[in-house]
């Protein structure tokens, strides 16, 4: 069974087999039809780096990359993601080498309680992949995806700016 679903599939309410890639690894798992990607990641795969702050699309803490684009995993039915490639915060660093944004978040003091941090990084990784030298407006827009109550955002903006400078130095 897969969720290519022919029109008359009788067991759309039953547990289905979902296959997708998470952090580069193929996964085939039985999932209930109403489970969200966030629940799938946290409860079934034990990937708890994606955070649950509201479960309603309002806090942004649950962001992951779906085929390279940041999305809120608490709003996504997992069953809708057949054959997708998911990247969570656990899959951002290449081995022990951090993404430049991760390093900048550390160095600039952009991490306080850290609960918003995974989502900030996920959104940022996408930003820098599509626009290595984002302007101030693009940076703030990107950061606005996630509520942060600790930092007032200033250090996070700073970390993003530092990362943009680094990319600019690398590819002048």
């Amino acid at each position, binding site marked *: 069974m897969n*969720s*290519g*679903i*022919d*029109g*008359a*599939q009788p067991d*759309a*309410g039953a547990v*289905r087999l979902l296959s997708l890639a998470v952090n580069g690894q193929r996964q085939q798992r039985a999932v*209930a*039809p*109403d489970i*969200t990607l966030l629940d799938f990641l946290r409860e079934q795969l034990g990937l708890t780096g994606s955070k649950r702050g509201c*479960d*309603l*699309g*309002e806090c*942004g803490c649950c*962001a992951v990359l*779906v085929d390279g*684009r*940041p*999305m*809120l995993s*608490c*709003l*996504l*039915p997992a*069953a*809708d993601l*057949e054959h997708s490639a998911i990247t969570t915060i656990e899959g951002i660093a290449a081995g022990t080498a951090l993404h430049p944004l991760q390093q900048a978040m550390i160095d600039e003091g952009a991490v306080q309680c850290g609960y918003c941090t995974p989502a900030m990084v996920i*959104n940022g990784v996408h930003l820098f992949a599509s626009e290595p030298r984002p302007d101030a407006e693009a940076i703030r*827009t*990107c950061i*606005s*995806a996630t509520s942060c109550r600790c930092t007032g955002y200033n250090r996070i903006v700073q970390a993003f700016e530092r990362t943009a400078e680094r990319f600019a130095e690398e590819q002048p």
Partner: protein
Amino acid sequence: MNAPPARFAFERPASLAELVARLARLSADGGDYALAAGATDLMPQIKRGVKTPARLISLNGVPELAGVQARADGSHRLGALTRLADLAGDARLRQHYPALCAAAGRVASPPIRQRASLGGNLLVDNRCIHINQSALNRAVHGTCFKAGGETCPLVKSAVRGRLPQCQARFVSDTAPVLLLLDAVLQLVSPRGERQLPLSQFYRDDGMQRHVLASDEVLVAIELPAADGLRIDYDKLTIRRALDFPSLGVALGVRADSGGTLGELSLALTGIGTHPGCWRFAAAAYDNANAMLDAACAAARESATTYQQDFFPRDYRKRMIDVFIRKAAQRLGVAR
């Protein structure tokens, strides 16, 4: 131990034909289902129990709903599944319809826009502080009409099924701009296909918000060439991120052949049960200022506001004029 049943069954048709066939069968069976595009509007409502469809039918596998086509005459066809982030970031579309791209870029937050579709945005449910709540909080007042109850906490005198109806407010950010652009909807159902101007789509009712049949699919949005129409869209929110419009104003100006203001058009969101839309032809007025005055008066008069949002009702109403005039300034019209 039996696991409780899933909140909803899920299916994902792979073509428009398959989708329509499914809809025909399901609606013959009484059809307790919901179509899900980005599901960014749907999922929160399902989680709060405001909507309880037995079945979710994902549109994301239907290729006919995706994609943007540009035609030589400057007109465009936007698939209903066009993601708001793609719309906002599309450089070519931005040349043709900058206000539409800007309005799409003001919806919700960046990761929501990556998933949210244009079709879903036109169909986003009306909101009210009494309905967008958990079951517990909805029950505190006696459940409102929209949640299946018998009272309206806003209009205490209202009786279900009679006027005044449910006053949940219309909140789509892209609808007012699309109205001014004379968008036409391409709709497909088991009964066939029809083209419907967006201007005839919405109804004055917080619950039965539009004329889309339950087995009907919005396939695409047809846009004529912008043709000298310049539009400004701005929304009233306390923050510059995340918030639904407490008021949204789209103002359009079209020069006549002589280069002076020929037509002024106006559409609102965030304020009533449906988006008002007005047009003012230069011929009927002394000058641009008179047209603006008329636009303000028409909007003000039509707007009924309720205490259902962050901003007090009278403030939202007062801001209609202010937003129209600020838009006019930005467009370089009058005062």
